[in-house]
């Protein structure tokens, strides 16, 4: 950012809610089926068909709203957003306008400054005002490639038409592209965490638009706003905003003027391009949808949703630090995903050693999981077995070094900790009688060294330990060996 300038950014996110069926009909929301396989008179917009609201979409919308600190309105109204496009079967989208599902959220997120390589340096909290989250239906898709005569025709696939969306709008509260980046990641995680949305930008079930303007530092008024679209990943969005800041500042510094317009990000070219100007903007002619009664949600309904939700990431992060004594970083790693946090708590309980479980999970198991591209919920090592492994180490049955090998084998074979230790014959001998017998043998076989030691050559102690370990084939518990050997030699 050039000195003397400030950027103002607001974000709009569209997240597909993870329902089985569409928001206003019973068609499947499954992705990847034959074009137009998941359609019916309602989502095809046939004459005479009427929408009926999917209750599950309301529940997931409520989860999403609560996870972002929004207040759910007791009554909200669906409205028609009118425009013509082939992927919009009815010629209007059923959305919400002046009485949205939820409003006035205040969200505390963590954001960081980044170095040249985009690595986070210093984390600090940032308060974001979330204006609203409303419910609406997704449109279908126009297909321009891969079918006959695409130079003359376009095709329409309405499988996606009617998939429930939550549109999440913020106030213009971001001052850097990285703040916007951290916010979108926060929202993605929150939506995934509460099961409201898969929130995968690459798959298109989370889409993002940014409103960007620049102004001189100290200026109260907002500059001319540009809307950025086609941001297919959080990184694309961050880059597009950076490009746009530079473009706008350069234009203004060169004495030029900006126009209010919509621009598309072209990642290959690394630039934004005009899509349409304000003059071409649609007049959507919103009006209340007469086919749907107002949506009313009771306080009990909201309370029920709240109770059914998992503890939110921030609260859990705090609790992991307080209850289990984890560091900020460890707690962050282990609350990366809901399944990982759940895994950790089960492992901590099974291990009866929360910090040990945390070390083994994030240091060892997580590396295996990440390398295999598997989530904690699909881990071949169960949390209980990870706990058993930690207990075996804590109890002195095997060494930490052996534990790492055991874990690798548990991961590749899916066997339990006890089985692997047993099969490998790794169990340490901690039995004093057995070790005393070995020590007796070793000392008897090395009479001369024993005399030297007793005469003051204490450096020989390591030699005796080595001999005992060798005789036990490495299974003797070193701690027990040390103690017994010292006692024996000083007799």
């Amino acid at each position, binding site marked *: 950012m050039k000195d003397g300038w400030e950027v103002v950014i607001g974000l709009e996110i569209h997240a597909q809610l993870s329902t089985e069926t569409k928001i206003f009909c019973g068609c499947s929301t499954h992705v990847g089926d034959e074009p137009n396989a998941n359609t019916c008179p309602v989502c*095809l*917009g*046939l*004459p*005479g*068909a*009427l*929408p*009926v*609201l999917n209750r599950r979409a309301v529940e997931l919308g409520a989860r999403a709203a609560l996870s972002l600190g929004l207040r759910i309105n007791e009554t909200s109204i669906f409205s*028609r957003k*009118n425009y*013509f496009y*082939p992927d919009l*079967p*009815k*010629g*209007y989208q059923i959305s919400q306008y002046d009485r949205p599902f939820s409003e006035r959220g205040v969200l505390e997120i963590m954001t960081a400054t980044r170095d040249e390589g985009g690595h986070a340096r210093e984390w600090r909290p940032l308060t974001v005002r979330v204006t609203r989250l409303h419910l609406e239906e997704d449109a279908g898709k126009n297909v321009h490639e891969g079918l006959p005569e695409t130079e003359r025709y376009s095709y*329409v696939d309405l499988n996606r038409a009617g998939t429930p969306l939550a549109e999440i709008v913020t106030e213009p509260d971001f001052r850097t592209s990285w703040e916007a980046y951290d916010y979108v990641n926060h929202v993605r995680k929150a939506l995934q965490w509460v099961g409201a949305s898969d929130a995968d930008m690459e798959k298109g079930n989370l889409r993002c638009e940014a409103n960007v303007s620049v102004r001189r530092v100290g200026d109260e008024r907002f500059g001319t706003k540009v809307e950025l679209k086609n941001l297919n990943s959080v990184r694309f969005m961050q880059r597009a905003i950076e490009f746009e800041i530079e473009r706008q500042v350069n234009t203004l510094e060169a004495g030029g003027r900006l126009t209010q317009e919509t621009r598309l990000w072209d990642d290959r070219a690394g630039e934004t391009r005009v899509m349409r100007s304000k003059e071409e903007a649609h*007049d959507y*002619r*919103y*009006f209340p949808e*007469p*086919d*749907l*009664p107002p949506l009313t949600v009771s306080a009990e309904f909201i309370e029920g949703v709240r109770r059914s939700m998992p503890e939110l990431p921030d609260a859990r992060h705090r609790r992991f630090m307080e209850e289990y004594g984890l560091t900020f970083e460890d707690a962050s790693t282990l609350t990366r995903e809901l399944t990982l946090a759940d895994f950790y708590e089960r492992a901590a309980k099974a291990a009866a050693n929360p910090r040990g479980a945390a070390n083994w999970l994030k240091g060892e198991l997580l590396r295996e999981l990440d390398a295999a591209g598997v989530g904690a919920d699909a881990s071949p090592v169960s949390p209980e077995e990870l706990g058993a492994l930690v207990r075996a180490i804590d109890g002195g049955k095997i060494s930490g070094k052996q534990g790492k090998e055991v874990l690798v084998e548990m991961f590749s074979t899916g066997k339990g900790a006890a089985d692997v230790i047993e099969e490998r014959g790794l169990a340490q001998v901690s039995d004093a009688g057995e070790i005393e017998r070995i020590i007796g043998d070793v000392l008897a076989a090395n009479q001369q060294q024993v005399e030297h030691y007793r005469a003051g050559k204490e450096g020989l102690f390591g030699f005796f330990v080595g001999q005992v370990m060798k005789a036990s084939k490495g299974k003797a518990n070193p701690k027990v060996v040390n103690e017994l050997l010292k006692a024996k030699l000083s007799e």
Partner: protein
Amino acid sequence: MKPTYGRVSRYGLVAFGSSLDQVSVFGLTVKDAALVLGAIAGRDPHDATTADVPVPDYAAELNGDIRGARIGVPRALFGEGLDAEVRAGVEAAIEAYRELGAEIVDVELPHAKYCIAVYYIIATAEASSNLARYDGVRYGHRAEESDELRQMYRRTRDEGFGTEVKRRIMLGTYVLSSGYYDAYYLKAQKVRTLIKQDFLSAFERCDAILTPTTPTPAFMLGEKTDDPLAMYLNDIYTCTANLAGIPGISVPCGLSSDGLPIGLQLVGAHWSEATILRLAHAYEQAHPLTARPRIVAAA
């Protein structure tokens, strides 16, 4: 017989003005209408605007006894534009009801005079949106050989829609446009609420309200179709029932000197279909049609 809004499912009904549309019954007799209504009324999970209100046995309630029923007459609406023969026919019907034992009471509907304006704003707004789906993309007529999408839309809709439909789409688009929404659509919705309240307070004093069905006898075939305003004004007595969402029924009450039919309308409170059917039936039994109307084509 136009039922209460939400009484009969609109699923499968091609939408015009969704907040006004209601599937209605035409019958040769009131009993026919009662029987059919009983069969089609009730909640439908495919139409979220249908109500879960019990459906009575309408035909069983047609017992002919209307003694003590209170019929409201809004005389203020019987003024300008009301054809003399229609007025005479309706006045005779009022007398007939008195003879059948009904009590005639004066009622006022102060906002009813705005009903045509309100109706044509709301109906056209909704129609402009409801008719957007006829764009030639998925079904129906599509203009041949367009170079690009907007041209295809424009030609398709220009060829497919008739003059009156285009007029209504343009009106509706206008009243919803940014800058005009508050002055037209929103204002119309507010007046609609006032009209509904007029009826609610009138029904505290009566069981049904009696008016002519139309201000003139039936049009001749083909008459007035190129005078839209005259056509719209003919809805003056009927559109209030649609705006207020209340049930209404029209029964023949004689013929004009040209042999054209004249109708009387009874409207009732929400869900009072049984009441207005009983009232209409009693009149029909006492004054059956003796002559058939003539079918007359415009010159």
